[in-house]
């Protein structure tokens, strides 16, 4: 799981986490037992997607410098990363 989440764990951390997860999953598992025979319900209050037209863009490049300034490494107007392939 830590691999999927791209997180490096310290020595012994995986083991202590797995003990904690047993307790937590056991507790949250009660939801599954109660909803087992329930059909998925719908109500009026479920969050729905709100879409807008893809129009009215802001003026080009007004945020570029502000945003790039936060990048750990840059080259010109690009964010720099290590070789991927």
């Amino acid at each position, binding site marked *: 799981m830590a691999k999927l989440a791209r997180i*490096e764990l310290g020595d012994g951390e995986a083991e202590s986490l797995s003990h904690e997860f047993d307790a937590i999953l056991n507790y*949250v598992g*009660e939801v599954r037992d109660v*909803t087992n025979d329930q059909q998925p319900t719908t109500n009026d209050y479920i969050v729905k997607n*709100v879409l807008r037209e893809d129009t009215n863009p802001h003026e080009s490049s007004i945020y570029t410098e502000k945003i790039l300034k936060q990048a750990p490494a840059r080259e010109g107007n690009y*964010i720099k990363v290590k070789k991927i392939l």
Partner: protein
Amino acid sequence: MTPQDLRSKDKDIHAFLEVFDDAKSYGQGPLSGKTIAIKDNMLMEGKRATAGSKILESFISPYDSTAIKKLKEAGAIIVGRTNMDEFAMGSSTENSAYGVTRNPHDRERVAGGSSGGSAAAVASGLCDMALGSDTGGSIRQPASFCGVVGLKPTYGRVSRYGLIAMASSLDQIGSFTKTVTGAELIYNVLKGQDPMDSTTITENTYPMKKKFSKIIGIPREFVESEGVSASVKKNFEGSVEKFKSLGYEIKDIELSHIKYSLAAYYIIMPAEVSSNLARFDGVKYGMHKDGKDSIDDFFQTRGSGFGKEVRRRIILGTYVLSSGYHDEYYGSAVKMKNLITEELKEVFKEVDLILTPTTPSPAWKMGEKSKDPLEMYLGDIFTVHANISGCPAVSLPSGLDGALPLGIELTAWLGREDNLFAAGKEFLGE
């Protein structure tokens, strides 16, 4: 108060992560002259925003969040950034990468969390009001621990544009104030639809059909859950009597699913956390730790930039969303969320408000609960239903256990903050 005074008064409490030297009023409005502190997960242009995490230690906000923009327009003086559990994950600020906030009523105890810095700042008179965010009780619980008013509005009432996300279907911005009148004042400034946050609601999303008739429901079985301390129970009964003497009708109500709110919460929240926090990769902004190749950069950055609780919740969320377990956990939790919301909808046809304690115990000693995550999680039992259903809720100071403040919580139906204000003002004699 000058920034120097503020810093020196905050020395023993550590409510603030930064006191601004250039605090000023940006305009004239309903908050003119009011000093306001902001939780460190809200962006204010040109200021740091770390969310209590090392991974954002050097991050400078490139723009104003909508909430901050509205505060500025209303004339508020924003005095500084307050301490919080890392990425708002915790109930005590002990998970902050920058040290714990102490409870102003007892320095050996926690101020609550995750918005503990904001609660302690208002409680100790360091500012008039403060902003917090509430995903499972992160405004109401520290408000209760510190003896102030903590409001979580209806989901979608206040724009979250520029709020560092934790669990997007639950997060909401709200306030800490000394009075309910103050909470209403800042609420009226902050609320409103925002084109930058598509989840914001309008005044008509939840029509206000039902007239306020001073009827309060008490879910007896829930209130008497195991683990609720004797002082909390006694204080709660006293508060019920007070409402009766103010002319409120008290009704016992049955909510058979509400006790599962917490279990559903601890599935939905980590699931959304694992997804939201995927963006912290050491590439676009924030901390970067070098690994042996591109993918190892992610592992190193995230492994050392995130604290223990954040790592725990991301991995737990990754598990409940993983192939083969998704339906079993996340699917059931979403079903439960709907059942709870439907159940509350039925009950609110008969009552205006639901009354519970805010927390099962007063503030605990620092370190007391940090060993066992599940025990800490159980402290959210009375607050998470409001996030699961989206309903607005407020914590009101209701007395003391020795030196420690206790709180009661009123929950109203979606869109009915007006009922919280009406009853809250009467309860506090405003």
